[in-house]
């Protein structure tokens, strides 16, 4: 047996799946050839090292970001069916029992009537109710110094055809998240506020709004908003502090082994600023040092190297998105 043939048998020999005659030949070769014998020892050691490679946990929020994308994908409109590709013979031979057809029609009629009769935007959840039209909601009575008019914001603006988010402070301890669009087609949305989910549509001239209670002092409330229009959709996350801080403060802190979401949560809490973000917030941030920095500088320090940018859309309100 030559050296090349011997080395080709290392795996089978190690896994004990070698036939007995070749095993004898290989063992004889290893006894005679010092080089191959050393090579086999190295080989065995390398395999033992491979077996010791540790498991690594996925980043925090990985599953949530997968499911957010799933939600956006789910809402995409299925591919348009061309009339000439339909098997018409099959369509006309589908047998629908008369009773099922009657029940279906009754449900459809009841649904249409309910749309006419029921008041819009019911949630039935105490404390989290949908507000009247945005124009009727009082704005920024909490803190006069931050009362610069909030600007609406949507990722990749596209002339406001997606979901436009605007954040206001309605009264002490209550935020108002306004949802509107310039699109004539409905923009579907799903909102998750601390595990309670809402879904609905907005269309041009028919905005919605949701009141969100501020979190308790020192913590952050995270609101997830998934929306889609046709093939386009986004998943946005809103970080709300217990109270928006009017005066800019400077802070020093460091962040290690975190994700973009962790960073935004921390900056929201430290500075008392609200942040509306989209993109892969599960992306890891290995290390960031914030030294005597304003919120603008802190956001730049922490996000610039991981491909995100931030900009102020109003006093104490920031938008964060991936650099394109």
């Amino acid at each position, binding site marked *: 047996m030559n050296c090349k043939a011997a080395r080709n048998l290392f795996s089978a020999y190690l896994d004990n799946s070698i036939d007995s005659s070749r095993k004898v030949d290989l063992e004889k070769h290893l006894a005679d050839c010092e080089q191959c014998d050393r090579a086999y020892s190295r080989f065995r050691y390398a395999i033992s090292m*491979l077996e010791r490679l540790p498991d690594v946990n996925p980043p925090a929020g990985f599953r949530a970001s997968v499911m957010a994308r799933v939600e956006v994908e789910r809402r995409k409109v299925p591919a348009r069916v061309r009339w000439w590709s339909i098997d018409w013979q099959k369509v006309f031979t589908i047998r629908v029992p008369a009773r099922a057809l009657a029940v279906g029609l009754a449900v459809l009629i009841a649904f249409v009537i309910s749309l006419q009769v029921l008041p819009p935007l019911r949630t*039935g959840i105490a404390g989290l109710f949908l507000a009247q039209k945005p124009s009727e909601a009082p704005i920024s009575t909490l803190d006069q110094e931050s009362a610069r008019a909030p600007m609406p914001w949507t990722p990749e603006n596209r002339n406001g055809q997606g979901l436009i988010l605007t954040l206001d402070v309605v009264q002490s301890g209550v935020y108002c998240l306004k949802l509107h669009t310039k699109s004539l087609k409905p923009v579907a949305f799903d909102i998750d506020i601390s595990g309670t*989910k809402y879904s*609905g549509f907005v269309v041009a001239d028919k905005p919605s709004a949701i009141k969100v209670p501020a979190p308790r002092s020192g913590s952050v409330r995270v609101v997830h908003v998934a929306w889609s229009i046709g093939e386009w959709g986004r998943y946005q996350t809103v970080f709300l502090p217990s109270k928006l801080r009017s005066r800019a403060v400077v802070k020093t802190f460091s962040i290690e082994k975190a994700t973009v979401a962790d960073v935004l949560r921390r900056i929201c809490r430290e500075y008392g600023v609200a942040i509306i973000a989209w993109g892969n917030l599960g992306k890891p941030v290995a290390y960031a040092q914030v030294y005597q920095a304003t919120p603008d500088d802190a956001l730049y320090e922490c996000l610039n190297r991981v491909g995100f940018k931030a900009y102020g859309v109003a006093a104490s309100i920031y938008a964060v998105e991936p650099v394109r």
Partner: protein
Amino acid sequence: MLENSVGARAGSFGDYEQLGEDVLIERCKAGDTAAFDEIVRRFEKRVFNYALRVTGNYNDACDVAQEAFIRAFHSIQTFRGDAKFATWIYRIVTNVYLDERKKLKSHPTTSLDDTIELDENSVTRQIEDSTPSPDEIVQTKERMRILQRAINALPDYQRIIITLYHVEHRSYEEIAEILKLPIGTVKSRLNRARLAIAEMLESEPELFG
């Protein structure tokens, strides 16, 4: 006419953790995203680790693993249950990775030094002695970094096979099914990959003496 109709969709969907894989898959096929959420929960660690070892880079692993789950979601209707779900999802991760490689081939972004940062706990778990000294921890971490660099240097298919066999502990038969290769080819590629790793580690005698 379109009104702003909002209905609270929160609430219990049943205890998914108790359900078997085949039931969850049937529910996914029926459009139940909560069932898919449970599938992601069960497989996220395996999928992420596999992606991490084949990409050799934490950020790329996040992207590949996420994209793999999205592809799985889209094609769950085509999963017939002939193979195990794990085999199917490994095949998807492999395809996503190879597709990404094809796209990036002209602009490679992964440097050999851009290897996985392991957190200290995951390394200390690997050490048999329950009280390793700081030097031992540093040395183990360094060994793992060099080992990952050696894996990164392998050709794609060898890297995939070595990861499936040694990290994911898949059998030859399963690897053959995942990669749609004859078992003989899997065995010979695994042997070549192992020999290559052993040779690369030889150049680090102070760590792998």
